[in-house]
């Protein structure tokens, strides 16, 4: 499952050109998805790590290549492999070369590695490996300001990663037999001062990646300037690395710094309001979605930081949901931009009448984002807010404003872009069909199915979450 995309990437890079590269990439992504489904069927959600790989890598330094799937890893690997075919599909009408698809597939391998690594260095290597393809994707196929913007993104997140590495190294130094093994790192006891520094190292790295307020300023520019496929990778999957990092690495490794969580939570919750209020007035659809993502991720992070069952479970299912919804939204923004040659709300309007199918699917994805009952977003936000409520009342109340503000900015996009009359001289908007319909259709169905029957997904991660909470 992990190697498949990597192989695909090499094959594509070497052998395929033009449209064939696209087909080969789609084939690889679908084959990986099929394999994932096979694994998922055979998966026992008992909280243990399954299909573990444990090879000596640099034995002198206690570094092993160690991977394993528990429910959490399985969910996120599932998310990655589910979204990949859609991300590939979304670029089907673009003239991207094979190199683009090779990079996307390398990214897929790296992301899966991040979500399953059980060794500090393995984790770090995959973490950095994921950064390189996305840098090239954005810097090569992005918008006008891509070079400066992606450079900033690269340096910023890289700086964060170095802090994480320092924290890992410090913990490594404290292990009895000098090992980077996750279990060994978990077992390390720190005193209060050490814990603060180590936790801060992790937190800043993860906060930049997600990004959380106030480490977010690379994000709107990068999301806006990257090609849509890149934005989808960044927002749909890559930002989950940060949340996952909090969940698997920061909290279990430094439970001694648990008192810092309320400060981190305050940042996360502030970010929800901050980003939502900004999103209310912006004109560029992609930028609005970017800020809305900061708000949504803030809520997810706050849920993780409760370090309690409901909040963590809510965060996990919402990571999946956010991936689906945000990819849907960026796809929508791309479809609009392709036809209308603008993403500015003031220049749009009247699309719903010309493209009823598109209007319905956009509506469903939007409702999922706004978290209306019977959509996936509601399950996640309900559990997150419930978890926050039980943990810290004020946080739940403040974070709760997201259900009002999110409605404000999402309905605003929908009204200005879709409703009303078309502007003078605007191009005719052809309704979606073919790959666009498939991609958006699959996402819309997922929005409703998960909203109706969320329990299987919650069952998948329940035992693993309990295991993590025991480490508190």
């Amino acid at each position: 499952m992990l190697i498949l995309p990597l192989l695909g990437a090499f094959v594509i890079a070497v052998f395929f050109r033009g449209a064939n590269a696209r087909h080969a990439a789609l084939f690889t992504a679908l084959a990986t998805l099929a394999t994932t489904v096979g694994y998922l069927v055979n998966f026992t959600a008992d909280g243990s790590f399954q299909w573990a790989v444990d090879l000596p890598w640099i034995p002198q330094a206690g570094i092993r290549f160690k991977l394993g799937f528990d429910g959490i890893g399985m969910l996120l690997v599932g998310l990655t492999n589910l979204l990949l075919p859609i991300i590939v599909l979304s670029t089907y009408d673009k003239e991207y070369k094979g190199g683009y698809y090779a990079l996307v597939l390398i990214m897929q391998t790296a992301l899966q590695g991040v979500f399953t690594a059980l060794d500090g260095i393995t984790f770090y290597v995959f973490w950095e490996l994921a950064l390189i393809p996305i840098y090239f994707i954005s810097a090569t196929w992005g918008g006008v300001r891509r070079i400066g913007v992606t450079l900033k993104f690269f340096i910023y997140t890289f700086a964060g990663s170095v802090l994480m590495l320092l924290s890992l190294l410090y913990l490594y130094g404290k292990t009895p037999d000098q090992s980077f093994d996750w279990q060994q790192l978990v077992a390390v006891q720190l005193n209060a001062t050490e814990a603060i520094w180590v936790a801060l190292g992790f937190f800043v790295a993860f906060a930049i990646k997600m990004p959380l307020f106030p480490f977010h300023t690379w994000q709107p520019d990068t999301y806006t300037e990257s090609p849509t496929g890149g934005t989808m990778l960044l927002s749909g999957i890559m930002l989950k690395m940060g949340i996952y990092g909090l969940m698997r690495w920061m909290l279990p490794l430094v439970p001694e710094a648990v008192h810092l969580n309320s400060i981190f939570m305050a940042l996360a919750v502030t970010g929800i309001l901050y980003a939502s209020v900004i999103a209310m007035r912006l004109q560029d659809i992609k930028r609005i979605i970017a800020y809305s993502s900061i708000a949504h991720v803030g809520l997810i992070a706050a849920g993780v930081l409760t370090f309690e069952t409901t909040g963590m479970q809510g965060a996990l299912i919402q990571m999946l949901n956010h991936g689906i919804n945000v990819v849907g939204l960026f796809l929508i923004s791309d479809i609009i931009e392709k036809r209308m040659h603008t993403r500015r709300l003031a220049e749009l309007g009247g699309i719903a009448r010309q493209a009823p199918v598109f209007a319905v699917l956009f509506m469903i994805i939007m409702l999922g984002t706004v978290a209306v009952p019977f959509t996936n977003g509601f399950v996640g936000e309900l559990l997150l807010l419930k978890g926050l409520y039980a943990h810290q009342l004020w946080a739940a109340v403040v974070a709760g404003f997201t259900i009002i503000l999110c409605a404000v900015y999402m309905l605003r996009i929908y009204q200005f872009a879709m409703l009303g009359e078309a502007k003078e001289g605007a191009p005719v908007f052809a309704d979606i069909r073919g790959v666009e319909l498939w991609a958006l259709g699959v996402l819309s169905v997922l929005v409703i199915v998960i909203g109706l029957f969320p329990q299987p997904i919650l069952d998948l991660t329940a035992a693993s979450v309990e295991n993590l909470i025991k480490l508190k």
Partner: protein
Amino acid sequence: MQQLIPTILLLPLLGFLFSGLLGGRLPKTVVGAVASLAVLGAFFGSLYAFGQTGPQPQWTVKVFQWVAVGDFQIDFGLLVDRLSVWMMLIITGIGFLIHVYAIGYMHSDPGFARFFAYLNLFIFFMLLLVMADNYLIMFFGWEGVGLCSYLLIGFWFQNESYGKAARKAFIMNRIGDLGLLIGIFMLFQLFGSLNYQDIFSRLPAMRMAEGALTVVTLLLFIGAIGKSAQIPLYTWLPDAMAGPTPVSALIHAATMVTAGIYLLVRSSLLFQLAPVTLDIVTYVGLATALFAAFIGLRQNDIKKVLAYSTVSQLGLMFLALGVGAYTSAMFHLTTHAFFKALLFLGAGSVIHAMGGEQDIRRMGGLRAALPVTYWTFVAGTLAIIGFPLLSGFFSKDEILAQVFAHSPILWGLALLSSAVTAVYMMRLFFLTFFGDFRGTPEQRGHLHESPAVMTWPLIALAILSVTGGVLQIPAFLAGEKGQWLSHWYQTLPGLAGGHVGHLSHTAEWVLMGTTTLVVLAVMWGSYRAYVIRKKLPLADTQVRGIELWAAQKFYIDELYDAILVRPLEKLSGILYHIADNRVIDGSVNLIGVVMTRLSQFFRLVQNGNTSYYLFGMVLGLILILLLNYVI
């Protein structure tokens, strides 16, 4: 019953899927018929359930477990008891009539199938709201009806102001929903369950602080304020009239806006233990009843008048709830559903005949051209103002009597509000149907009675509006036997004590006589003003003083704009341009700039001259030795 109950819910959902997926390709008659039949089927199902729901039996169906995280376990469960089955009858019964009416009203609209899909979806969510067996699934329906309301207000979405009205409704509802959601969390925290039966059965055993219950009930009430358009979250409802008229009748008069009343009645056991909340409910209800009635006095859009009247009548129901008269509130909810649906559909028939005109200043003398509409409108108007023996007379009288038993001052104010209601309703009625025709010649030529598919629902609703009072005839007139609705609700916990006040028969006679006199006086006064003297409302530019304030809805929208919307927008700009781009991003970039400068400095050091490097090494060694010595 175990199969029937989910089926009732499923029928409108299937209707929605049918119209939504296939409707565009089928003839309109098929779509309209299938949608109406789906609701009719649900009505017959509810009727059967109504027969099966005795004093004790209540039916619960667990469809599936929706979510279980730790101890937070929510079943998708349904409950049919005497309260919910009554609501189901109203929803599906009136819903069916309005579906039929809409076949005629929407016949030339290109969005016909979409319209019926939304209507069916609304019926589904509304049924879910009343049939849920726990607060969270109720919340599903609660938000779902809000969504349908949004879709239907903005049904003619090409019009930008309609889209804006739809957005406003959704957002204002969401403000209430946040309160409700936090209330739901708190209920779970207190009771460890969200199931109605669990909560109410655990209630007596719990010696909990009154404070906690006060907060919970206030949070639930915030939800009700949003959904039922009470002060301060009422301004969305008049704007909601942008939707097609059948929608105004079904959603924004007869059913959805009564969800707040249902919520409070359902939670009556909680509210009874929170006297502070009940007082707040009383005053909010009364204030809304009065305030909206006064605005209604100076509105000239036929649907806006009815909208403010709805806000005002809902206020009256909350007033009843506040004084503990739950059965009276349910009674008025029922009769109001009859006559307000009728009035809206009648108004729709008028608008239809006038070719889309809604300003009553350009109507007049429509009596002759629209006989069925006229006579049914008579029934509706008399019912709402409380003309003796019509449905509204009994239900309003019961509320007033209960309020009087609570406090004569409140009674006086409530009476004032119903007097004002009578004034604006008579004004509306006379200006529309009496006097000379004031529209354009084309409109005069266009005047016609609506087709039978629209008039039959009017007639059915008119019969209900006239006779609905028999559900609950005051005990001093017909003895205990007349109190059918009270008997019906008697076995429901919390509703049994519906009658708080006990008045002497004489007192009840006097009260009833007073209200009757007030109504008759208003009718006579309005007749003189609008029919004999042919008084006409002023043009917008001529209105002065307090009338101008009423005509301009007391500038509440402008106030909200000035204190909430615009500051928030301003804040948004400040956060984006200054906080985000300058302060936060600026500091990040500053680090970058500093780094670049430093690297330029260090680059000077690496000049390739070996002697410098050696010098550096020696310096370093000396430093290390020195430091070692010092430490």
